[in-house]
């Protein structure tokens, strides 16, 4: 399950990347909505957001991008957005237009269930999946509450920290997942800090899905002014990750 930032480096290339990622074996794509103040993100996704915002991309345009790409692919797409762009658009309007465009789910990293009442109501109305995040610091009561409002899957943040590629996996993943499974039968996916085929394979032994973001953006970043190189290198790297998940 790859993450890319919509509009990084351009909206057109984002669309091509979505299709490339599907061809590389992705099962679901997290399409990031860039935000000016991404407090849960490390430097890689911060830079991706800055590049995307330099092109003035907005949440509405990103929904339109999904609408266009839907003509060519059925792959599940979840928008990952900080809360303010959704709040500004209006939660009902967001859920309505996103679902109409073919978005399958939404992940809001700065929206805990306590503040999510209105978004949940609209999402349910329009049948948009809501993915909430659990973290190594979540208490059993919170795991339970978060799993209860998550539809689609529950997103396990593997480390106490921000997004970004890391050399080694956190040893908190296994206990967190087994605890979470006591509260939910829904799929559990792990993200933050997974960056290699080997790590993806290890996580896949525990979880139902593996989310890789910064490591893919690092590949994009290495070839910024060469569209063909971005697409071919992302295809190769995402294929590696998918094989790691599915084969080892």
């Amino acid at each position, binding site marked *: 399950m790859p993450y890319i930032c919509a509009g990084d480096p351009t909206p057109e290339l984002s669309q091509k990347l979505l299709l490339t990622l599907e061809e590389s074996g992705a099962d679901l794509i997290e399409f990031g909505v860039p*935000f*000016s*103040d*991404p*407090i*849960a993100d*490390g430097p890689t996704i*911060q830079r991706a957001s800055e590049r995307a*915002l330099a092109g003035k991309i*907005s*949440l*509405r345009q990103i929904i339109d991008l999904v609408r266009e790409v839907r003509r060519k692919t059925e792959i599940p797409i979840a928008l990952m957005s900080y*809360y*303010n*762009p*959704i*709040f*500004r*658009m209006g939660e009902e309007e967001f859920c309505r237009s996103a679902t109409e465009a073919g978005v399958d789910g939404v992940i809001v*990293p*700065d*929206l*805990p269930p*306590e*503040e999510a009442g209105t978004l949940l109501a609209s999402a349910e109305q329009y049948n948009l999946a809501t993915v*909430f*995040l*659990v*973290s*190594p*610091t*979540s*208490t059993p009561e*919170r795991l339970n509450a*978060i799993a209860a409002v998550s539809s689609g899957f529950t997103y396990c*943040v593997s480390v*106490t*920290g*921000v997004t970004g590629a890391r050399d080694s996996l956190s040893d908190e993943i296994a206990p967190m997942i087994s605890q979470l499974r006591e509260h939910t039968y829904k799929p559990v996916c792990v993200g933050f800090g997974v960056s290699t085929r080997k790590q993806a394979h290890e996580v896949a032994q525990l979880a139902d899905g593996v989310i890789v973001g910064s490591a893919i953006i690092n590949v994009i970043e290495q070839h910024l002014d060469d569209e063909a190189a971005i697409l071919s290198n992302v295809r190769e790297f995402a294929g590696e990750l998918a094989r790691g998940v599915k084969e080892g």
Partner: protein
Amino acid sequence: MQPLPDATGHFGEFGGRYVPETLMPALLELEEAYRVLSVDPEFQKEFKYYLREYVGRPNPLYYAERLTEELGGAKIYLKREDLNHTGAHKINNTVGQILLARRMGKKRIIAETGAGQHGVATATVTAKFNMECEVYMGEEDMERQALNVFRMRLMGAKVTPVDSGSRTLKDAINASFRDWVTNVRTTYLLIGSVVGAHPYPMIVRDFQSVIGVETREQILEKEGRLPDCVVASVGGGSNSLGMFYPFYDDENVEMVGVEAAGESILSGKHAASLSEGSVGVFHGAKCYLLQEDDGQITPAHSISAGLDYPGVGPEHSYYKASGRASYVSITDDEAVEGFKLLSELEGIIPALESAHAIAHVEKIAPMMDQNAIIAVCLSGRGDKDVGGEMGPPLALGH
């Protein structure tokens, strides 16, 4: 009055907790610790001891006689937060929170700072209580407030430059949130204004309320009545809320918050989030903020680093929406005039932040009756603003 915030951390529609899940347990832990300590007589006694012996409270409510005469209207009193140890109101809050962090067993303190006043106030208490301290500060602010960087480092704090985004307070807050997300188990985030996720706006307000509580007692002693108007500058809003909150139920006391109009409101280069902004969610709370139509945050602008912030505290947002307080704005140029006026007439060099409040008083005092009373929060002293890039524009005025 209704207790504010409510049990879920909201001030009407404002406030709340919009943070990554990793921080939620820490916010709940902090709320619980504070709930117990805020009614613990021993804790309150300790807080008052350090405010008296270390900060130097109570500070005077000073009758600014020459300023009053010059403006020819209402009597003007200055609440002298500039006379506190470290030269600003920020230390009221850092003393309170460091005592809280100690009781919670935290060893490492992180903070954000804009003008550097909160960073200095944090470095001061971490030195005094022997705790590790890291302060995040935008690179642009480090340049315009070099003296405060020096002071923090002298007291043993690590000052980490933030080079992302607008390189000012908002980005320093982002960096401190990212540090806290990473080190939440060992680290206490010492927020310096009435912003952020619940319970921070409440905690900072409570610790800063000593400003208004003292002002109330002092004006009753001097004048036998409450002021007609209290005035304070608003960036995030801690000195103003500290001044306003104890007067909340005194319906005849008008509250006026003064924001930074920067180059001008029309130029778009300003920091008037209450006067000109719209409702959104930023840095963990629902509040008024400066933003684009699509929800991206717009960088603020002010000559004063302490007001250069695109959001504002949720309780101020509530006061604005409910009409309990009114909010106005003062341009960079007007603030510089206020800065000079107070220096020349009273021999008091105000911080540029406080100079915004003085500049608004210049406008309203002449229109008020001579029996009327204005109490202004002089939130800090202006030594930090005399050097650097402020030197030339100030000198040009003479």
